[in-house]
């Protein structure tokens, strides 16, 4: 009966703020994410989209409701759900190679095999020659490529991405998006991707969710069924794309403005 890869059932999340008052970040979110989906989540900042991601990851516990992955409730983090953050996904004390092999090491993969797997991801991410470099010696884009390789090397069932390209410059970002799409098209791993960039969300996702301002709920849910080859350079100039972008942006804008008012009052 349950064909969803990830099922979010009525998830509510309340924090106690520093002032001591309760803040509801998420209010009863329910979602079904089928296998092979590339779900992108957009919304105004502070709407709880990252919180939702962290709950799926098992890092935070929902105040109410639950998340099922492959029909099994999430109780904590696990290697079945890989995560890439905007920053800080890499261990600064490990070299590029050691970072990529980290997860394999943790799963008890023998050394020789680890090296071999890691090497294939080094190639895939075009990181050859940097095996022995430490993260601080790499550019932001390269660091994120390593982070992606680190996560992919564990072959997770689901990849959670928390604004992974948010800190990159525009060009690098574009290249990384293309890279990610290429990967997804090869492997079709289920991806949940949080961003504040509407264009990115439409370009990458097979389905876009717009969240409301705090408390976060699903405001708009739209499958992306543009029948265009996404590797074409003029993809984003396509009329259908522009329309979609406008529709989703209006949704987001409404929430941003509403959030501004909430904050002011």
């Amino acid at each position, binding site marked *: 009966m349950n064909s969803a890869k990830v099922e979010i059932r009525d998830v509510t999340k*309340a924090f106690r703020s*520093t002032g001591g008052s309760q803040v509801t970040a998420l209010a009863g979110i329910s979602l079904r994410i089928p296998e092979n989906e590339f779900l992108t989540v957009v919304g105004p900042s502070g709407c709880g989209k990252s919180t939702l991601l962290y709950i799926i990851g098992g*890092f*935070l516990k929902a105040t109410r409701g639950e998340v099922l992955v492959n029909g099994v409730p999430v109780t*904590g983090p696990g290697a079945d759900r890989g995560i890439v953050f905007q920053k800080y996904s890499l261990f600064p004390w490990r070299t590029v190679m050691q970072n990529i092999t980290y997860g394999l090491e943790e799963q008890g993969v023998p050394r020789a095999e680890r090296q071999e797997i890691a090497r294939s991801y080094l190639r895939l991410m075009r990181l050859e020659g940097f095996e022995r470099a430490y993260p601080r010696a790499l550019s932001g884009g390269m660091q994120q490529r390593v982070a992606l390789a680190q996560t992919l090397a564990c072959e997770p069932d689901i990849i959670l991405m928390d604004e992974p390209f948010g800190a990159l410059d525009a060009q690098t970002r574009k290249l990384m998006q293309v890279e990610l799409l290429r990967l997804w098209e090869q492997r079709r791993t289920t991806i949940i991707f949080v961003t504040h960039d509407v264009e990115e969300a439409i370009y990458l996702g097979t389905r876009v969710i717009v969240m409301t301002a705090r408390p976060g709920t699903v405001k708009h849910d739209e499958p992306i069924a543009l029948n265009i080859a996404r590797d074409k350079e003029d993809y984003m100039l396509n009329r259908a794309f522009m329309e979609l972008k406008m529709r989703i942006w209006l949704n987001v804008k409404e929430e941003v403005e509403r959030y501004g008012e909430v904050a002011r009052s």
Partner: protein
Amino acid sequence: MAQGKPRVDVDMASGSREPAARRWAALRWLAAGVAHYFSVLLFFGLWEFVARSGWVNPWVFPPVTVSLAEWGRSLATGDIFHPMGLTLLRALGGLTMALGVGITLGLLMGRYRLVEWFFEPLIAIGFPAPKIAFLPLFVLWFGFFNTAKVLIVFTSCIFPLTLYAYHGARSVDRFYLWSALSKGSRGFALLRKVVLPAALPHIFDGFQVALIVSFIVAFVAEMVTGGGGLGFEMIKAAQDAETPRAFAMLFTISLLGYGTIKLAEWLRALLLFWHIEHEAH
């Protein structure tokens, strides 16, 4: 902040609670309070037991209750307040002087190459020098009474203060400096208006270190060179074989230090409200 278990979850509480649960929470809170001082109680209990067990001469190592009673007595009669005041005066006097000189010197070192060149090796060498060995000489150089003691506190505190201020000044983001320079700030004004506030978190680190140093050094200076104060009273009590009184002096300095540490933390939160460190919590 600190949670048992790995910090998988960062939120503090979740949802509303039933009244029964709330009662439980209150009970837990109470238990936590007792647990908080459990180690101190245990330590005192152990002390009491050992002192009364006959393993040591109880006049040499008196039970903690006897020492606490003597402490209570000296608090009640007020005869501890005069030495306490003296020690505080010396510690804070020396610290205040060191604050003025150390911070200025540190900031200048951070901004001016010549100052840095001259003082850096002196500070680097002077920091690990055992200041306590110079105590008798300080008395010889600067006389009795408060001068020598205030100066030895000053000498001991100035190293951490200068060092932290220096590193603070050096780590000021150059964009702040450029921004201020482009608006016409120069020389001392630049130091005071940009470098000092930007280096303040570092300076405060140094202040918190120096605060403890000032108490310890003032106390030890009184132990070694006399002239009243908690340290002197402790040594005198030890010489007169009045060990409980010696412990009372130790309790006093420990609590006094504890109080000022807390005060400094409070001050830090008050003064550095704009600094990023508060967003972390």
